[in-house]
């Protein structure tokens, strides 16, 4: 249906890849867009750094800009020690940003509008924080859950709350990105549906009145572009904040 706002999120199997038990793993449109994003990022970065010149070309300066941007984010939130996680954060940021931006193209599929994708990213971050924190600090990592200067009689309660707060991180981390992209794309589609509805219900007057929702779509697309960038940035900066906990757990 043309005006179904949910239709755009449908997963379509393109071709089967492997069959495990009774479950067929297929190459979906979501996987295709992820692959396109990865190829696009790789082509951009390899192409930009192919002939490194002192006076950068436009492509090279774009790549340098994205490097500087992520590097300054990592340095300011996780310290210079956090720079060992720079490749990780840069990959996540570029992937989400590219995927979000591709999703804004009409008829394109938005990979991050599926919570399974954002949850996989958030859980990767969560496990990295947990794994690195335990490897680096051993049992001292759990000091993260024991704030200083708390009276002993409410400490057990506080520890439970801190642990729950820690566990809730991947949930909020993934839901934020997913819900933003989902809500934005549904809004766009609903406003686009208004044009069709008005046109088919009221004829010529309806089509003329369709200018109003159309203007709204233009404005919303601008907003969505901002949101697409902002959410990629927020995801990256929260990754840095969480990684900072793994590097310095409340020392």
């Amino acid at each position, binding site marked *: 249906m043309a005006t179904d706002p949910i239709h755009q999120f449908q997963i379509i199997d393109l071709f089967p890849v492997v069959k495990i038990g009774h479950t067929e793993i297929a190459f979906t449109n979501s996987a295709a867009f992820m692959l396109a994003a990865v190829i696009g990022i790789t082509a951009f970065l390899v192409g930009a750094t192919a002939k490194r010149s002192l006076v950068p070309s436009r492509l090279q300066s774009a790549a340098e800009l994205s490097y500087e941007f992520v590097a300054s984010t990592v340095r300011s939130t996780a310290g210079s020690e956090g720079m060992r996680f720079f490749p990780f954060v840069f990959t996540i940021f570029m992937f989400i940003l590219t995927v979000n931006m591709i999703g804004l193209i009409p008829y394109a599929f938005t990979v991050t509008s599926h919570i399974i994708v954002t949850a996989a990213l958030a859980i990767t971050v969560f496990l990295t924080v947990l794994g690195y924190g335990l490897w680096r600090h051993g049992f001292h990592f759990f000091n993260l859950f024991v*704030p200083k200067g708390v009276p002993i009689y409410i400490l057990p309660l506080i520890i439970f709350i801190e642990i729950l707060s820690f566990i809730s991180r991947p949930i909020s981390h993934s839901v934020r990105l997913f819900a933003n992209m989902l809500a934005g794309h549904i809004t766009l589609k609903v406003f686009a549906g208004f044009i069709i509805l008005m046109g088919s219900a009221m004829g010529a007057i309806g089509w003329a009145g369709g200018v109003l929702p159309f203007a709204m779509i233009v404005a919303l697309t601008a907003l969505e572009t901002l949101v697409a960038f902002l959410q990629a940035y927020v995801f990256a900066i929260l990754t840095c904040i969480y990684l900072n906990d793994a590097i310095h757990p409340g020392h």
Partner: protein
Amino acid sequence: MADGTRGKGDRNEPPDDEVALSARLQRLGERLADANRPSENDTGPRSTADASAYARGFRLSTELVAGVVAGALIGWLLDRWLGISPWGLIVFLLLGFAAGVLNVMRAAGVVRERHLTD
């Protein structure tokens, strides 16, 4: 008794009361500014992350919901594994709510982030 004398004073000298009120408001404003200042400095990079109020509002609401959901999930799982239904859900939902509020306060900069406390 203290209330009675204060009430009488209010009625006799309304301008005095207003002066006191405005002084208190000013003090409150100063204290709020003091309380906000360090957190603004600390979350310098974050304030750019929350560039739009929409993103900020969204962040705060998801933080709260995530805490409650995490609590509910753990409570439910404990109920299933230990067969203590419904106590796990009740206790962990409440704890989860507390964790959600803590998340929101951290995200809003009311309570400073853990790694910034020392």
